[in-house]
């Protein structure tokens, strides 16, 4: 689950595949951002804001802690 260059680790890619193989574009449309933003989040190059993180978690029907993990290294 570890991704580089970010304070947050995430498992968005796995959750997308677990939720009917959702595409990045599908997820982007549902949370109101661009596909490039979803890509950047998955690759750990961008840390989402709190509202966006909550919207992502809500889309997957899970809690924010199960989507994002603080990187304390």
């Amino acid at each position, binding site marked *: 689950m570890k991704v580089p260059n970010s304070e947050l680790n995430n498992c968005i890619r796995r959750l997308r595949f677990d939720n009917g193989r959702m595409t990045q574009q599908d997820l982007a449309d549902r949370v*109101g*951002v*661009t596909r*490039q*933003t979803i*890509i*950047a989040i998955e*690759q750990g*190059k*961008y840390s*989402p*804001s709190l509202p*966006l993180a909550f919207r992502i978690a809500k889309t997957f029907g899970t809690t924010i802690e199960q989507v994002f993990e603080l990187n304390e290294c």
Partner: protein
Amino acid sequence: MNRLQKSAWLNLAFVTAMVIFCGIIFSVMVLLRVPGGIIGLVSFIISSAVFGLISFMIYRKKGIEAKFDERELKINARAKLWALGILFFFLAYICVGPFFFLGAKAHIPVYVLPLIFLGSLFISQLVHSAVILIRCMLEDESAE
């Protein structure tokens, strides 16, 4: 091409066209030795009003930046910061440089001033658009 890239290209194209157009007008006025005074002031007011109206019509209809998501807003803000920084250095060297190169008692023609303004405008927009486009290009290369 996403909204951010489109916005960067549109702004760069508009500013470039405006700088070229104004540069041509100023060059013609310098070559024709257009007199200053009331004629120059009225010309300046009219051209500023026309340019302001065109800008308002273009940017009011564009509305692209209003639809940026949070990441694009951050990239745009960072690009504006870079543009401001480069603009500062450009103006510093352009305005202070001649003092050292030409000496304290030297004179420069008045038409240099609008050229400095146009140059500043072009350089700041060039940097702003370049930062956005380079950032988007680097992200596209690493995208799946």
